[in-house]
């Protein structure tokens, strides 16, 4: 078996403040195989987004951050890479999609200018005409009907759903092997969110892109992901294939999380205390889904 696209081992993160260290991640391990779609699920503040930023190497620039553990990208140890080479991976081999598509596009430039900058990351010598052609093709891939018009528009002239699709097209434009999706579409309404996720799902399959899908929305995760890691307060508490997790949640926290999903049949959402006993129980890996078995 070839090296997984991303392998994180015993990743710890703390912030050094005047009052001492604040531990954010307590040694999490996860991996994403080639072409695999893996979800990282947890509540706000559980450490989902910081994990993505560490992978991109953006937290390392903060002087108060203390990071340990190993990061492996396609068999390369990211920490041993020169900062320059590591920087070069961003936007070419790995890219990211954000929550709010409209604010992720600079309001003062038309879409094309920004698209071209993305393409220029991979090929600095790209010409105007070629960039335009590629951009149009990429936008057509995300089912945008009038790519020409969209390219000459500004972000605020497009709808949220359109912007989200533009962001997806941009993120995949350079054929990255890893896509970090940080709660994509949370800022959109549910139907548009479902459409764009379906689209993204098809596209990553076509491109063979691995995805780390960060979300708190279990419904979306169930639709989209192959495997799920549940994270709580900086620890992975349960890992399983999507099917296993939803049919047979075992960790007390996962159960609480699942019972907190509003149901169309009513019944209300149970009150769950913040520090219910058992939430900090050690990791439960479903059969066949532990790191050891997966990476063997």
């Amino acid at each position, binding site marked *: 078996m070839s090296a997984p696209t991303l392998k994180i081992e015993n990743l710890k993160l703390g912030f050094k403040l005047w009052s001492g260290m604040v531990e954010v991640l307590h040694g999490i391990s996860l991996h994403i195989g080639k072409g695999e779609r893996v979800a990282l699920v947890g509540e706000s503040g559980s450490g989902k987004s910081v994990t993505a930023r560490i992978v991109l190497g953006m937290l390392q620039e903060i002087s108060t951050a203390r990071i340990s553990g190993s990061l492996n990208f396609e068999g390369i140890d990211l920490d041993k890479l020169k900062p320059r080479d590591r920087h070069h991976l961003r936007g070419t081999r790995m890219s990211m999609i954000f929550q709010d598509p409209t604010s992720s596009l600079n309001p*003062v430039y038309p879409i094309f200018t920004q698209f071209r*900058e993305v393409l220029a990351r991979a090929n600095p010598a790209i010409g105007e005409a070629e960039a335009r052609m590629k951009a149009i093709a990429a936008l057509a891939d995300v089912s945008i009907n009038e790519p020409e018009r969209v390219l000459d528009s500004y972000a605020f002239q497009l709808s949220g759903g359109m912007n989200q699709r533009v962001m997806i097209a941009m993120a995949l434009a350079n054929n990255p092997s890893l896509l970090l999706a940080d709660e994509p579409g949370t800022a959109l309404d549910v139907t548009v969110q479902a459409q764009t996720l379906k689209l993204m799902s098809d596209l990553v399959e076509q491109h063979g892109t691995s995805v780390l899908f960060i979300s708190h929305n279990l419904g979306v995760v169930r639709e989209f992901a192959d495997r799920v890691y549940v994270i709580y307060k900086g620890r992975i508490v349960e890992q399983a294939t999507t099917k296993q997790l939803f049919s047979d949640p075992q960790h007390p926290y996962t159960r609480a999380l699942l019972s907190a999903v509003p149901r169309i049949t009513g019944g209300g959402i149970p009150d769950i205390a913040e520090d219910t006993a058992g939430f900090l129980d050690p990791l439960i890996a479903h059969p066949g889904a532990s790191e050891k078995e997966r990476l063997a």
Partner: protein
Amino acid sequence: MKKTLLILTRNPLSLLGLILVTIIVLAAVFADFITPFPEHVGAVVDFTNFNQPPHWPNIFGTDLVGRDLFTRVVYAYRVSLILAAVVLIIAVPIGVAIGLAAGYLGGWTEYVLMRITDIFLSIPPLVLAMSIMGLLEPTLTNGMIAVTAMWWPWYTRLVYSITRSEREEGYVLAAEVIGASKLHIMFREILPNCVPSIVTKMTLDFGFVILIASSLSFLGLGVQPPTPDLGSMVADGAKYLPDSWWLTVFPGLAILIAVFGFNLIGDALREILGGDQ
């Protein structure tokens, strides 16, 4: 740009501002052709016609050595406009670059740059300019240096505050993620979003720079005779009030009109472009 001009002409106050500023600029540019005695700019003496109240052809009267006041006021506008333009052309890029760097880079860069800015801001502007002028020789160039030195911190503060809020925006993060350089993010992503506020402030400041420069020369620290300057004309005339009122009133009005005109446009731009102060 075209749209902005159109909106400017629709509001009576901003239209007035636009007309005043246009007249001032045109008068300053074509001073050689519209003034009756262009030679009175220099050290000319005409004792047969000195200290006269307004009359034809000296519509603003004449000064103590018989020079046409109207001519000198128009030429003084030219000096003032050049001074204001040069000051802003130098002060704005410096202030903007420092504000961007402090706001985006953060950390020690921010501490050092903003504390230096605060030091400049904590000294009353006129006192700062006066002390610089006191150290240097009172010439037009040094006047520009002094006013520039007191002006850039305001742009640093303005751009710093915008940058601080813009750097949290998604597009900055998105640019960082795709690996854009710091310079690219500062100047190509964040700066364009600051432009409306900067332009608005520059228009407002144009009037204020003229005012400050006039204050300096009123105190004898600015442009030196015989070059005409509104501030020093007011200062010279003040000794002869109220009898020779025209010596003070016309240059004073000239300052008032210029500051008023630029302020009207600036206020209108602030509303149109949504720039905040």
